[in-house]
């Protein structure tokens, strides 16, 4: 066991799965000799060669579609999208194709593929290198959506995703690639796709988050904890299909919910959590269901005062926790 960064854990998962199963291959822009623009595939080209690590043409639609075809023909592609923002040309292939093939063929064809994409803001990326896309894609039945919040989960969940027989969109908080560190066991283990994780027990309120925001929520919970506010923190991890039981059980305990996400607020992922709680958790509601999210503007602006204004972070989160606790 040793401490690794989020991106190291991701690389290790791919490395081990490539070694373990010859059906696995990687394609995407600059994944070869360059090792990816974030270096997620660093060293893999040298180790596995050009038939396992394939630099794709600059064309996301085809990265996904070629992945779909290869998956239907018995391989397990890992498709890297350079930034989540650039997945959008592939939207049709993901939503109308990858996610539907199993259902539309009555289960006779499967599409075991992983689409990895770095998402999120706070890195000076402006409108087009900062996007959060989880809500849009979690609305798609047939697709699984996973976002790890720490290196241990990242490795274990990515391995599960690669072994899954369905298309999995695996979103990685790019801001956390080197910032988030944690213990990661050597060798094989998996974390199942599905279950959410109560990462902090508490009694006053429940905070739901994932990815980078979960990291910030931990800091904020720590902070308000010193003031006597007891926060229960639920790391959703798998956004679709959602672990509704864990979501509801925590709410039954605290009766207060704050959902934190950096995507635009309106119809962002937190809307569904709030809607579930307002229906199935109605009897336990002690306060308004609150959401802290990115504002409804067309993207994270570049200039740093504007970016700071946009992004939720530990301070804004702690304030929201205080407000809800005081309700």
């Amino acid at each position, binding site marked *: 066991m040793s401490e690794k960064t989020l991106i190291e854990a991701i690389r290790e998962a791919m490395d081990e799965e490539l070694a373990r199963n010859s059906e696995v291959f990687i394609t995407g822009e600059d994944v070869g000799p360059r090792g990816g623009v974030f270096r997620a595939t660093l060293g893999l080209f040298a180790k596995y060669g050009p038939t396992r690590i394939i630099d794709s043409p600059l064309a996301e639609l085809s990265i996904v*579609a*070629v992945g779909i*075809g290869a998956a239907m*023909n018995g391989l397990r592609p890992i498709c890297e999208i350079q930034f989540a923002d650039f997945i959008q040309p592939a939207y049709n*292939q993901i939503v109308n194709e990858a996610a539907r093939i199993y*259902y539309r*063929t009555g289960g006779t064809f499967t599409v075991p593929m992983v689409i990895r994409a770095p998402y999120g803001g706070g890195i000076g990326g402006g409108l087009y290198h900062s996007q959060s896309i989880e809500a849009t894609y979690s609305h798609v039945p047939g697709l699984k959506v996973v976002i790890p919040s720490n290196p241990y989960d990242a490795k274990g969940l990515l391995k599960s995703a690669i072994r899954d027989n*369905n298309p999995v969109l695996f979103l990685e908080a790019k801001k956390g690639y080197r910032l988030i560190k944690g213990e990661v066991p050597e060798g094989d283990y998996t974390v199942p796709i599905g279950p959410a994780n109560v990462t902090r027990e508490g009694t006053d309120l429940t905070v739901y988050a994932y990815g980078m925001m979960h990291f910030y929520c931990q800091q904020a919970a720590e902070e308000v904890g010193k003031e006597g506010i007891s926060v229960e923190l639920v790391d959703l991890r798998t956004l679709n299909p959602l672990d509704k039981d864990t979501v509801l059980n925590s709410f039954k305990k605290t009766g207060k919910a704050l959902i934190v996400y950096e995507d635009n607020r309106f119809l962002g992922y937190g809307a569904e959590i709030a809607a579930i709680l307002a229906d199935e958790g109605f009897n336990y509601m002690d306060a308004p269901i609150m959401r802290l999210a990115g504002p409804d503007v067309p993207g994270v602006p570049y200039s740093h005062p504007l970016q700071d204004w946009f992004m939720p972070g530990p301070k804004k989160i702690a304030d929201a926790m205080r407000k809800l606790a005081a309700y």
Partner: protein
Amino acid sequence: MRGSISQGETSMVMTVAETAPRTLDGLPAELLLDMYYAMLRARRLDERCWLLHRQGKIAFHISGMGHEAAQIGIAFAMRRGEDHFLPYYRDLAMVLACGLTSLDVMLGVFGKKDDPSSGGRQMPEHFSLRSKNIYSVSSPVATQVPQAAGVALAEKLKGGDRVAVTCLGEGSTNQGDFHEALTWAGVHQLPLIVVVENNGYAISVPMVQEMAILHVSDRAGAYGVRGVTVDGLDPIATYKAAKESIDIARAGRGATLFEVRVVRLTPHSSDDDDTTYRSKEDKVTLKASDPLPKFREHLMQAGILTDQQDTEFGAKAMAEVDYAHQTAEAAPYPDVEWGAGPVYAP
């Protein structure tokens, strides 16, 4: 779900008169008669679907009439049921040749439980059959083309010797999917045949409004792949050209953009009315291009096909279509739980 249902389907054993010539245009008589029957059967099935639609018994049909010669020419050049095939909605003759039965198709047309393509979840003519490597037709056009590139890439990575064949209409080559697929095909020299069934129309839009080139195969030069245009009304010419392209692909020498010039004898689909964009005269001309009577004529003139044989074929096709229609009409609908899933594979 179920596999393909073959019960009641007759096999295609041919009884060619002893005296008949054994080859024509370099192809054996048996093959030509098989091809002819395959075209004929597809046509009869297609016609029945139109009839059922007019009778209000089915909700929708989209037809391959006029495309059969091309499709059969290509299908017979494939290792049918083994080579990967990613069809589009007009490929009735071709999916039948590759392994779907008439009953399978009819079950799909009626939206019945035992439809092997989707169990009634998809619209008619959204063919698939896992056991015969017939991949699933989608409605958004051209999505299958880059998927076929992926199928071919996997084949290459696995060291297999199957080729991937995919079809689409000429209008659909305007989608970005087509462009990106051919780019991969060129870069990786994929064992891939991209068949463009050029019938001159995308629903109502004539080719001149769709692209400023005369031959879709002119697009091959943009990707460093072979480009071929053949007369898709001639099954023999199509067969030979397809065979060459497939052989090249199988030998690892790269992909072909394979254009077949065909005609669309019907409106776009049962929802369409083509009177606003095709004149009555055009339709008369069209009829004269019908590849089925042309091929019949050609075989008869060569003495390969006799009147009697043709009558037998016709009767056999009708029997198969009758059986398929009646069985499918009587078959059960899916249970409603089948709507709910499973959504995810285990």
